[in-house]
């Protein structure tokens, strides 16, 4: 197991280097002047030139690249052009927000997606199955921005159960966090829960038709034990792959929800950075996000090995 972990971590290093180089190249290839974005609407050329000089943007791109890698080797991701604060600090301020929201949305996704998928499989071709799949289709089809707005109107404006937006940190006020995060988490989770429900259903149906399940039932094992111990544990291997992708989507794809609910997450931060050509923020923020996603993928790989001994033996 340790071998798998070490090999995966070692393979992450070239990925990170590649991502950082591609990110640097692409963000500098996009036309658009960060100084103009910082200066605002009605800045004069003189003012924009001042900003460019103050922030070192008038240096050649190669110089900027070498300086960035030099600083990176010393653990310095640079300073955001737009925010004026270190990239690492800005990212670490936003990352917990996104991670907490993603974790909440993931729990909802797993409960709704796995639950409805398993039930649909067990009640195949009944009204329960059809209702669960209809729900899944609605989840997949409804844009989360629209769903979010509908929820604001219903739960915030009409019923006054939840706030319209804003964010309270989890550690500062857990109940406040729950109140501000519930609608965003639902709007994020519903799409992914629909996806997970459909995949869980089809995987479970496939496993439930296997000979060993029939054998287990013939031996007279209780239905619950057959489903949980024999069917679900085998179905979990492909489902784990999907969950890995879902985690990646939650971390990287929450920008619309963050914007709608005024949540200061990493998605908003990076989107603003790209739109405003905040080079250090884009480079550093994407590097950290990439590292996180690589770690998620390593965790999924390790979990495979836990679930399936063949993976351990193959890698040995």
């Amino acid at each position: 197991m340790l071998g798998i972990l070490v090999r995966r971590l070692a393979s992450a290093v070239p990925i990170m280097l590649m991502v950082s180089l591609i990110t640097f190249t692409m963000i500098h290839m996009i036309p658009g002047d960060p100084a103009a974005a910082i200066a605002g609407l009605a800045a004069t050329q003189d003012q924009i030139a001042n900003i460019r000089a103050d922030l070192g943007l008038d240096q050649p791109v190669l110089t900027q690249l070498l300086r960035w890698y030099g600083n990176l080797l010393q653990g310095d991701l640079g300073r955001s052009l737009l925010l004026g604060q270190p990239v690492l600090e800005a990212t670490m301020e936003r990352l917990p927000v996104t991670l907490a929201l993603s974790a909440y949305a993931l729990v909802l996704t797993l409960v709704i997606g796995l639950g409805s998928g398993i039930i649909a499989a067990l009640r195949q071709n009944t009204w329960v199955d059809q209702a669960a799949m209809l729900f899944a289709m609605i989840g997949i089809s409804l844009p989360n921005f629209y769903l979010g707005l509908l929820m604001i109107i219903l739960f915030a404006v009409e019923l006054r159960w939840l706030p319209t937006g804003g964010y309270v940190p989890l550690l500062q006020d857990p109940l406040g966090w729950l109140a501000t995060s519930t609608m965003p988490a639902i709007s994020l989770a519903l799409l992914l829960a629909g996806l997970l429900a459909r995949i869980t259903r089809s995987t479970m149906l496939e496993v439930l038709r296997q000979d060993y399940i029939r054998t287990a039932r013939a031996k007279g094992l209780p239905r619950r034990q057959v489903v949980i111990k024999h069917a679900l544990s085998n179905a979990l291997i492909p489902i784990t792959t999907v969950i890995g992708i879902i985690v990646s989507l939650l971390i990287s794809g929450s920008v619309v929800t963050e914007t709608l609910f005024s949540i200061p997450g990493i998605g908003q931060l990076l989107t603003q950075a790209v739109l405003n050509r905040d080079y250090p923020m884009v480079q550093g923020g994407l590097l950290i996000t990439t590292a996180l996603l690589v770690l998620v993928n390593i965790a999924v790989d390790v979990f495979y090995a836990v679930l399936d001994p063949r993976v351990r033996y193959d890698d040995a």
Partner: protein
Amino acid sequence: MRVAASAAIFAAFGVVLSSTLAVAAPFKCPNVGGNFVFGQEANINTLDQMTSLTISTRNIAMNMYETLMTRDENNNPILELAEAMTEAPDGLTYTFKLRQGIKFHNGKPMTSADVAASFDRYAKIGIQRSTLDNVDRWETPDPFTFIIRMKQAQPTFIEALSSFSAPIVVFPSELRDTPSMQMTKPIGTGPFELMEVSPGSHVKMKRYEGYQPNTAYQERTGFGGYKQACLDTVTFRIVTEPGARVAGLKTGELQGVEDLPTKSLPELKKDPNITILALNNWWIQIANPNTSFPPTDNVLVRKAIQAALDMDEILDAASDGNYRLNVGFQYPNQPTYTDAGKETYNLRDAALAKKYLTQAGYKGEPVILLTNKDYAPMYNSALVMQQQLQAVGINAQMKVVDWPTSVQMMQNTTEGWNFHFTGWGTQPALGPLATMQFLVQPGAMYKPKGGIDDADLLAAWKDMNTKTTAAERQEAFARMQKAVLEKVYSLPFGSFTKVQGVRSNVKGFVPFRIPRMANVWMTN
């Protein structure tokens, strides 16, 4: 006594004194307390006011910072941290007597050393540091005297010094060497002090108990005057989605919001708990031609384009229905407003446009409208303008990029575009100098051929800067505006109204260039 001193100063500059001075007793908060949450439409990048021109930064920071001079309700220069100012007869020396008893939010008393340190930093990294180009040095002969010595007389210096675009805010001297954009936690002398900043989420301020109001006034006026913090706390929450701002105002989570969408207004107006406030003259929507690239290098083509435009249609689409027709580069409520060149505005004359096109020998060359979708008004106005130009036979084409790219193209190239869409909000409010600087080199937005200014414009611009009386400078501005419009070096469409809203228990909130939180209170 102080009022009289101020009056004398402004009389010398030909500046109209605020009528608020006539009020008998200074403002007293009718109710103290409450937590005000304001829904702001745009994110803030930094609270380092010296290095930012963005409105979102100013909205928040200028409730915490103050300056030596600022602008009153009508955008006229007034004293703020100074109680008196004298200008030497030769115009080479300005002596400011600072108000005494003022303390920064960290408890340190403010002296001339702090003012000098603030000027030092501004001269080094201030985004508008050209304001101080004509300044030779500043001196601090005693703790409450600050002297500015000029290299040469500049009749417009006070206008520039009092600008709120990127103001020379005063902070404690120990912060002098803070690098550019890194003064992210304001320590000022304003009525509110910073509590917390959560980038992308909110900025929270609380009443500064040690605040020393300016007793030369009895009421708040513009950015200055007699200010009092009645509210316990003020939170600027970033709510970029208009629907969420409306929802927040309805539920009372937000006590005030800016930029309410037009379609929500009928419903909000029926709500007795909500007051809708119009902030007229917020922004002038503009398209600037590229006079170095065909076919807009031909003045007759530009005149044809000008003649074809229907400003009502353009502004209606661009402003979501909240606009006023407005000739030129100043707002109609300003003393510097002029309608010089009005005969060129909103002509809607297809026959005249076609006549100019024939005279120009126009052969259907593309007229490229360079715009962006980051700012919806710019995109919408370009879209309508394209239709209007096509209707008279002009081959108008849109080039849509994002804002930083459009600015880069406009600044760095004189090819591939014919009109660049932008908007000026703060600059017209500051006055003609701040606005017309965009029409002279360096950086004349109409891209003059060979980079050489139009002689008429340059002559008028020089007069605007050097004539000694306000009347002469105003005449020069009118001349310049007329020339710009007649030669179509710019197409100002008209001005937008910004619609704000507050809960009905919020009192004293008067729309201005920033949401001012001083002298605002809440009833129960």
